[in-house]
C-alpha cells in the first residue's frame, strides 16, 4: 500500500526537480544575455570616439547599468522559477494534462503519507505514469532553455563584434575610471610650433590627437581674447594653418578630456637701418652753405656736391655698400653705425646693400635718386615789349626784363644801340623769378627811326657767365605803320584768345574727368591703396587749380592786349564807336569769364585738396568744372567778337590807308604838270610801293572774310583790292600816272568803307534770322507740345516717338541760340537761359516715363514744357526788337548809351528829390503825393535797368536795378532823408560810369586815366544825351565814347556844363 502512493508522489517530485533545473538554467542564461547585450550596446554607443566627447561618467554608468539589469533579470527569474516550478504547480499541470479531477493530485500532496493518501495514490497510479507525468510542461521548459541559450549566443556575438569594431570603446568600458580621467589615450601634442618666427611669416602646426575624431585649437594674440576652432583629426593628426604671425601668439589644443600646454610663438624683426642722414656740401664756388637733405626721394644737387651719409642699424654690421650699375661705394662700419660719402658728378640711382655680422641681409633703405644739375648760364629775356614794336609820340617806353639764374645773378643791364653808338643802362637785379623795368627815352627819335635793345645778365658766381636776350627793335611809327601795327595787334589778339579758349576747354575737360573718375578708387581694397588714390587725386586737383590760375592771368594779359589794340586803332584813326564798343565788350567778357565765383571754387578745391578729403574734393572739382564751362563759353564769345573786331579794324585801317594814299596822289602829277623832279619820282615810287602793299593787305582781308564766310563784305572788299592794284600799277607806270591813281585809290577807300558797313549789316541780319527762326520754331514746338498734352490727357499712349522728335528739335533751337549768343550780346543771357530751360523741360517729359507716371502727370509736364517754350520765344522777341534798333551787330554801344540816358534821368530825379522836405513821412499830403510821383519815375528807371541787365549778357546792370528799386521803395514810403538823397547821388554816379561797369575796366573812382596824345574829337551830330528836352538842346554833349576815359567827376562836370549851356540859351 505504501509503495503505490509513494510512487505517484515520487514521480511527481522527480518531474518537479527536473523542471526546476531547466527553468533555473533558463534564468541564468537570460541574465547573462542581458548583460552581454547591454555591454554590446554600450560599446556601440561609445564607439567611434564618442566616449571622449560624451560625459566621462558614461562608460562606468553603462557598466553599472548592465550589471544591475542582469542581476535584476536573475532575481526575477529566480523568483519565477520558484513560483512556477513547485510540486504543487507540477501536480496541477499533471491534473491538467492527464485530465484528472481538479485537486486529485494536489490533495494527495496535502494528505502526504496518510492512508487515505495512499489509497488515493493507488487509484491514481494507473493514470499518472512514473516517468514524465507532465510531458507538455517538460517540453515548454526545454524550449525556454533553448531560447535562453540562443539569446545568450546572440548577445555574446554582439558583444564580441562591438568589442572588435570599437576597440577603444570596449577598452573605455573595461577601464571606466581611466576613461573618465583621460588616462586611457595618449595625451594631445602640438608639433611644428616654433617659439619665434620672422614677423609676418605664415606658420603651420600639427596637432597629434590619436584616437580622437576632432580637436579644438585655441589661440590668441597676446592680450586679446581666446578664439577656438575645431579641426578634424585624420589618422591621428590635425594640420592647422595659423596664418601670418605679426604679434606674439599663444595657443593650445584640447579635447573633452584634456589639453596641451599653452605654447607661445613670438614674432621677431629683421635687422633694419635707422637714423639715416644725408649732408650735402656744395661746390665752394657756388657760395651755398652746407645743408642737411632728406636721404630719400629725388635729390637735385649741383654737380660736384659732396654727399655724406651716416646711419645706424639695429644690429652690429659687417658690410655696408652703396652701389649703382658701374660702381660700389664701401662705407665705414663701427658696430651698428656706418658712414661714407660720395660726390654727385652724374645723375644716378644709388642702392644700398647692408649685411649684419650674422650674415643676414638688412632691409635696405630707399634708393637715392640723384639728379645732378649742371650750372646753367643765366636766362634773360625782354618781356615787354614782347616783340619788335612801334610806338607813337615821344612818351618813354617801358622795357621789362626777366632774368633768372640757377644760383645767383650778379648784373642785369640793357644795351641800347642807335645807329653806330651803344649805351648800357644798368638795371636792378630782380628777385628770383621776378623782373626789372626801365623807361627808355625815345624823344630824340624821328618817325621811322628806332633803337635796338638787348638785355644782359651775368651770374655772380663761377666764371660770371653772361647771357644776352633776343634783340627788340623799338621804333617810332609812321601813320601807315601804326595801321599795320593795329592790324597785327588785332590778329595776335584773336590768336591769343583762340588759344586761350582752347586751353580753357582742355582744362575744363581735365577737371571734369578727374571729378568723375572713380573706378580706381573702388578697386582699392582699403588702407594704403585708398590713401594713395586720395593723394593722387589731391595732386591732380592742385595741378588743375594752378593751371586754371595760369589761364586767369593769361586772360588779364589778353584784356591788356585788347586795350592796347584799341589804343592802336585809335591812334591809327580806325576806331569808331562801334568798334570801340566791340572791344570794350571783349574786355567785359574777359572779366566775366574769370568770375569771383570761379576764383572761390578754385579756393574750395585747393582747400579740399589740402584736407585730402576725396569726396569733398570731387564735389569741389565738379563745381570748378561748372564755372570753367561758363568761363569757356565766355572765352568763345571773346574769340568770336575779336574775330569780327579784327575784320572791322582791318577794313577801317585799310580804308584810312587808301584814303591817305588817294590824298597824296591828288597832290601831284597829271597832264600839264611840270616835269617831275627826282624827289617827285622817289615819292611816286614810295606811293606805288604803298599802293601795292595796300592791294596785298586787302587781299589778306578778303581771305579772312572768306574764311569767316562774311559774304556781304566780300564783293566790295574784292573791288577795293582791284582798285588798289590798279592804282599801284598806275603809280609804277608812266610819270603822269600819280593823278590817275588818285581816283582808284579813292574808290578803294569807299569800297572798303562799304565792305565794313555791309558786313556789319550782314551780321545783324544773320542774328535777326537766327532769332526769327528760333522764335517760330519755339512757337511751333509749344503748339506741338500742347497738342500732345491734349492727346495724352485724352488717353493716347503712342506719344513717345513723336515727343522724341520734339526733344531733338528743342535741342536744335537751344544750340542755335547758344551759337548766336556767342556772337552778340543782343541775345540776352536771360533768353539763352530760358531756351535752355525750355529744352530741359521738354527732355523732362521724356524722362517722365522712368519711372512710369500716369497720363495726367505726363500731360501736366507737357503743358509746363509748352509754357516754357512760349516764354523763351517771348524773351527772344525782345532781343529781336533790340537787334532792330541796334546800330552795331553787338548791341553794346546801345547799351552804354542807354545807361547814359538813364543817368541823365536819374540826375533830374535827384534834383526833384532834393526839393522834397526832409523827414517827409510826417509832412504834408501834397509832398507825399509828389514823393509817390518821383517813386514811379524811379521805378521806371529800375525797370529799364532790369531790361538792360537782361541784355548785357552778364546781368551787371542788375545791382543798379535793385538799388533803383530800393530807392523807389523809400520814396513810396515817403522816407526822404539825407541818406536817401546820398543813395540817389551814388546811383547817379554809378550810372554815369556805367560804361566802365559794363566793360569791366577797373579803378573807377581813381583820378588816374590813360593819357593819349591830343586828337581832334568829332562830336556826333545826332547823339542823344537825354540832358535837355529835344528841341531845347542847342549844344550836344559828348557821348560815352568821348567821356569814358575821364573820371566820373570830370564826366559829371562836362555834362553839367552842357546842361547849363543849353539851359542858359
Amino acid at each position, binding site marked *: 500500500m505504501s509503495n503505490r502512493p509513494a510512487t505517484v508522489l515520487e514521480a511527481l517530485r522527480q518531474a518537479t526537480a527536473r523542471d526546476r533545473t531547466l527553468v533555473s538554467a533558463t534564468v541564468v542564461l537570460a541574465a547573462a544575455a542581458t548583460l552581454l547585450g547591454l555591454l554590446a550596446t554600450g560599446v556601440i554607443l561609445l564607439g567611434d570616439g564618442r566616449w571622449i566627447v560624451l560625459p566621462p561618467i558614461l562608460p562606468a554608468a553603462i557598466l553599472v547599468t548592465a550589471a544591475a539589469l542582469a542581476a535584476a533579470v536573475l532575481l526575477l527569474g529566480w523568483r519565477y522559477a520558484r513560483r512556477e516550478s513547485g510540486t504543487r504547480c507540477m501536480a496541477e499541470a499533471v491534473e491538467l494534462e492527464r485530465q484528472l479531477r481538479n485537486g486529485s493530485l494536489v490533495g494527495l500532496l496535502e494528505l502526504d503519507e496518510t492512508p487515505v493518501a495512499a489509497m488515493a495514490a493507488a487509484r491514481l497510479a494507473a493514470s499518472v505514469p512514473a516517468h514524465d507525468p507532465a510531458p507538455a510542461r517538460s517540453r515548454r521548459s526545454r524550449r525556454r532553455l533553448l531560447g535562453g541559450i540562443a539569446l545568450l549566443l546572440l548577445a555574446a556575438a554582439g558583444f564580441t563584434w562591438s568589442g572588435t569594431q570599437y576597440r577603444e570603446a570596449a577598452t573605455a568600458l573595461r577601464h571606466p575610471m581611466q576613461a573618465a580621467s583621460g588616462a586611457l589615450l595618449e595625451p594631445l601634442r602640438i608639433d611644428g610650433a616654433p617659439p619665434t618666427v620672422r614677423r609676418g611669416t605664415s606658420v603651420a602646426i600639427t596637432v597629434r590627437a590619436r584616437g580622437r575624431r576632432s580637436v579644438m585649437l585655441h589661440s590668441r594674440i597676446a592680450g586679446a581674447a581666446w578664439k577656438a576652432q575645431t579641426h578634424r583629426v585624420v589618422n591621428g593628426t590635425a594640420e592647422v594653418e595659423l596664418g601670418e604671425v605679426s604679434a606674439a601668439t599663444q595657443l593650445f589644443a584640447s579635447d573633452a578630456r584634456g589639453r596641451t600646454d599653452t605654447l607661445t610663438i613670438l614674432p621677431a624683426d629683421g635687422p633694419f637701418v635707422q637714423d639715416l642722414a644725408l649732408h650735402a656740401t656744395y661746390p665752394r664756388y657756388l657760395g651755398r652753405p652746407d645743408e642737411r637733405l632728406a636721404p630719400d626721394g629725388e635729390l637735385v644737387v649741383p654737380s660736384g656736391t659732396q654727399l655724406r651719409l651716416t646711419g645706424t642699424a639695429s644690429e652690429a654690421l659687417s658690410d655696408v655698400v652703396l652701389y649703382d650699375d658701374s660702381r660700389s661705394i664701401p662705407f665705414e662700419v663701427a658696430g651698428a653705425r656706418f658712414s661714407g660719402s660720395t660726390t654727385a658728378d652724374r645723375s644716378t640711382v644709388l642702392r644700398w646693400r647692408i649685411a649684419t655680422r650674422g650674415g643676414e641681409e638688412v632691409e635696405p633703405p630707399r634708393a637715392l635718386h640723384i639728379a645732378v644739375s649742371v650750372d646753367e648760364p643765366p636766362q634773360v629775356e625782354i618781356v615787354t615789349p614782347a616783340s619788335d614794336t612801334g610806338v607813337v609820340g615821344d612818351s618813354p617806353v617801358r622795357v621789362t626784363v626777366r632774368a633768372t639764374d640757377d644760383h645767383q645773378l650778379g648784373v642785369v643791364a640793357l644795351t641800347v644801340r642807335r645807329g653806330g653808338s651803344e649805351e648800357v643802362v644798368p638795371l636792378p637785379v630782380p628777385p628770383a623769378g621776378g623782373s626789372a623795368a626801365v623807361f627808355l627815352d625815345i624823344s630824340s627819335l624821328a618817325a621811322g627811326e628806332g633803337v635796338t635793345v638787348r638785355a644782359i645778365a651775368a651770374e655772380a658766381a663761377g666764371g660770371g657767365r653772361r647771357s644776352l636776350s633776343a634783340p627788340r627793335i623799338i621804333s617810332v611809327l609812321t601813320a601807315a605803320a601804326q595801321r599795320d601795327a593795329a592790324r597785327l595787334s588785332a590778329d595776335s589778339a584773336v590768336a591769343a584768345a583762340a588759344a586761350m579758349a582752347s586751353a580753357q576747354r582742355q582744362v575744363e575737360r581735365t577737371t571734369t574727368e578727374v571729378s568723375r573718375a572713380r573706378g580706381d578708387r573702388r578697386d582699392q581694397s582699403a588702407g594704403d591703396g585708398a590713401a594713395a588714390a586720395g593723394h593722387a587725386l589731391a595732386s591732380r586737383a592742385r595741378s588743375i587749380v594752378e593751371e586754371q590760375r595760369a589761364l586767369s592771368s593769361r586772360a588779364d594779359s589778353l584784356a591788356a592786349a585788347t586795350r592796347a589794340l584799341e589804343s592802336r586803332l585809335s591812334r591809327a584813326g580806325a576806331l569808331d564807336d562801334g568798334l570801340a564798343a566791340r572791344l570794350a565788350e571783349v574786355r567785359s567778357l574777359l572779366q566775366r569769364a574769370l568770375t569771383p565765383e570761379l576764383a572761390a571754387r578754385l579756393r574750395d578745391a585747393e582747400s579740399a585738396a589740402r584736407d585730402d578729403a576725396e569726396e569733398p574734393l570731387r564735389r569741389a572739382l565738379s563745381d570748378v568744372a561748372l564755372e570753367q564751362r561758363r568761363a569757356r563759353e565766355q572765352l568763345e564769345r571773346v574769340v568770336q567778337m575779336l574775330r569780327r573786331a579784327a575784320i572791322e579794324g582791318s577794313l577801317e585801317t585799310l580804308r584810312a590807308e587808301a584814303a591817305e594814299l588817294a590824298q597824296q596822289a591828288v597832290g601831284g602829277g597829271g597832264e600839264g604838270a611840270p616835269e617831275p623832279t627826282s624827289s617827285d619820282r622817289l615819292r611816286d615810287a614810295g606811293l606805288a610801293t604803298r599802293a601795292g602793299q595796300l592791294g596785298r593787305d586787302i587781299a589778306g582781308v578778303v581771305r579772312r572774310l572768306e574764311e569767316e564766310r562774311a559774304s556781304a563784305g566780300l564783293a566790295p572788299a574784292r573791288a577795293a583790292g582791284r582798285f588798289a592794284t590798279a592804282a599801284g600799277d598806275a603809280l609804277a607806270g608812266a610819270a603822269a600816272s600819280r593823278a590817275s591813281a588818285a581816283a582808284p585809290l579813292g574808290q578803294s577807300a569807299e569800297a572798303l568803307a562799304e565792305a565794313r558797313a555791309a558786313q556789319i549789316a550782314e551780321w545783324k541780319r544773320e542774328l535777326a*534770322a537766327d532769332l*526769327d*527762326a528760333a*522764335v*517760330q*520754331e519755339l*512757337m*511751333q*514746338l*509749344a*503748339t*506741338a507740345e500742347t497738342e500732345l498734352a491734349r492727346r495724352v490727357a485724352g488717353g493716347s499712349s503712342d506719344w513717345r*516717338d*513723336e515727343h*522724341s*522728335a*520734339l526733344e*531733338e*528739335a*528743342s535741342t*536744335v*533751337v537751344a544750340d*542755335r541760340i547758344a551759337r548766336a549768343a556767342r556772337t552778340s550780346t543782343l541775345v540776352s543771357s536771360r533768353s539763352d537761359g530760358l531756351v535752355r530751360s525750355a529744352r530741359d523741360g521738354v527732355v523732362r517729359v521724356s524722362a517722365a516715363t522712368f519711372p512710369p507716371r500716369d497720363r495726367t502727370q505726363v500731360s501736366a509736364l507737357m503743358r509746363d514744357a509748352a*509754357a516754357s517754350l*512760349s*516764354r523763351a*520765344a*517771348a*524773351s527772344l*522777341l*525782345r532781343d*529781336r*526788337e533790340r537787334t*532792330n534798333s541796334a546800330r552795331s551787330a553787338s548791341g553794346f554801344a546801345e547799351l552804354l548809351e542807354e545807361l547814359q540816358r538813364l543817368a541823365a534821368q536819374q540826375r533830374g530825379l535827384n534834383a526833384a528829390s532834393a526839393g522834397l522836405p526832409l523827414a517827409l513821412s510826417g509832412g504834408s499830403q501834397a509832398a507825399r503825393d509828389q514823393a509817390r510821383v518821383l517813386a514811379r519815375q524811379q521805378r521806371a528807371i529800375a*525797370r529799364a535797368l532790369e531790361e538792360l541787365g537782361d541784355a548785357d549778357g552778364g546781368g551787371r546792370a542788375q545791382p543798379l536795378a535793385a538799388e533803383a528799386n530800393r530807392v523807389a521803395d523809400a520814396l513810396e514810403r515817403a522816407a526822404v532823408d539825407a541818406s536817401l538823397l546820398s543813395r540817389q547821388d551814388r546811383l547817379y554816379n554809378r550810372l554815369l560810369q556805367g560804361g566802365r561797369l559794363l566793360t569791366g575796366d577797373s579803378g573807377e573812382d581813381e583820378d588816374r586815366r590813360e593819357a593819349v596824345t591830343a586828337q581832334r574829337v568829332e562830336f556826333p551830330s545826332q547823339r542823344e544825351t537825354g540832358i535837355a528836352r529835344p528841341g531845347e538842346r542847342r549844344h550836344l554833349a559828348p557821348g560815352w565814347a568821348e567821356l569814358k576815359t575821364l573820371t566820373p567827376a570830370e564826366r559829371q562836370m562836362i555834362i553839367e556844363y552842357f546842361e547849363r549851356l543849353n539851359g542858359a540859351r
Partner: protein
Amino acid sequence: MAPGRTLVAAVAVFLGPAVTPSSAQESAVYRALELEDASRWEEAAVLYRAEIRGPDAVQAAFGLERALLTLGRAEELEAVLAELVRGQDAHELIRSMYVRTLLRLERRTAARVFASEWIAARPSEPEAYRQLYAIAPLPAADARGLWRRIRSGVASDSLRTIADELAEHVLAAGLWDVAREILEDRYSRGRDHETAGQLALAAARAGDVDRARRVAADAGLPADAPARAWLALYSGDLAAARSLLMRADDADPGAIQPLAVLSRTRATIAPVFGTAVLALARGDSAGAARGLAASAQEVAGAESLMLMWAARLHAARGDEAGAGRLYDAVARDHPHSAEAPEAILEQARLLTRSGRSEAAAERFEHLILTYPASAVLPAARRELDALRGRTPPAS
C-alpha cells in the same frame, strides 16, 4: 520737431483754429497723421473715416482724401463724401472736395448737377459758384445767368472777388459780352486800372472799340498798360503797340505772334492787320485768317510770318485747302524766310493726309536737303520714315 508733428502743425495752420497742435496730439486725426507720416495709408484711412462725422470732420475729410487717393480708391472717397454732403450742414470745403472728386472720376455731369443744387441751397456761398464755373467753360447764356445769381445772392464783401474771378474765367473762355457786362458792373462799383484795362479789352473784343478807348482814357490807364498796347494794335498803330507790347508779360502767349510780326516790320501803321488781330481776339479765326493774309503786304518784312499765321488759323479750323494755298505761297515766295521749313513740312503733311505719299515724300526730302539746320527736321525725318514704311517702292 518730428516729421509727424511738423505735418500736424502745417495742417493745423492750414485749417485754422479747429485743430491746434496741442489738442491734436490726443485726437484720432493726429494719430492718423502720424500713420500717414509712416506711409501706413490703410490704417490712416480707417482712422480718418472713423472721425469723419466727429468734430474734426473737415480735417478728417482732407486726410481721407489724401489716404484714399494715394491708395487709388477714388470711388470709395466719392461714396463717403456723397454720404456727407447729403446732410444740410456739410462744410463748404467738403462740398468742394466732393466736386473735385467727381471731376477726378470724370463725372462732369454729376459734378455740375451737384454744384447747381449747392447754389440753389446756399446762394450766398461764393465757393458754390466757383466750383460751378471751374467744372467746364460755361456757354454765354449760362455764364450771364450765373453772374446774375451771384450778383443777387452773394454778399457785397465777397462780390468783388467772385466777380473778378468770374470775369477772368469768361475772358479766358472768350465770352467778351459777358465779361464786359461783369466788368462794367465791377467798374461801376470801384474804378481801378486793372479792371479798367480788362474792361477796355473786353469791350474792344466784344466789338465796341470806341467804348474801350473811352474807358482807357477815362481811367487814365498808364502808358505801359497792356490794354493800351492791345488797343493800339487793334487800331493798326504798330509804333505804339511795339513799344508797349515789348514790355508785356512774357507769359502772355497771345502776344507772341503779334510781337513776332512787330519785331520784323518797320511799318508804323497797318489797319488791316489791326483788324485781323482784333478778329482773332474776338474768336473769328476765319476773318482773322483772311485779314492776316490780306495784310501781309501791309507789314513789309513780315509777309511770310503773316501768311504762315493765317495758314495756321485755317488749319486749326480744318480748312486744309485754305491752309495749303498759304503754305504753298510761303514755300514758293519766301524760301529764305524762317517760316519756309515749317510751311514745307505742313505741305508734306497735307499731301500725306490726302494719300499722295510720293509727293509728300518728295516734299519731306526737299525740306531735309534744303534746310538741314531747321528744328523741324527731326519731325520731318520721323514722318518720312513712317511714310516710307507704307509707300510702295518706286518701280
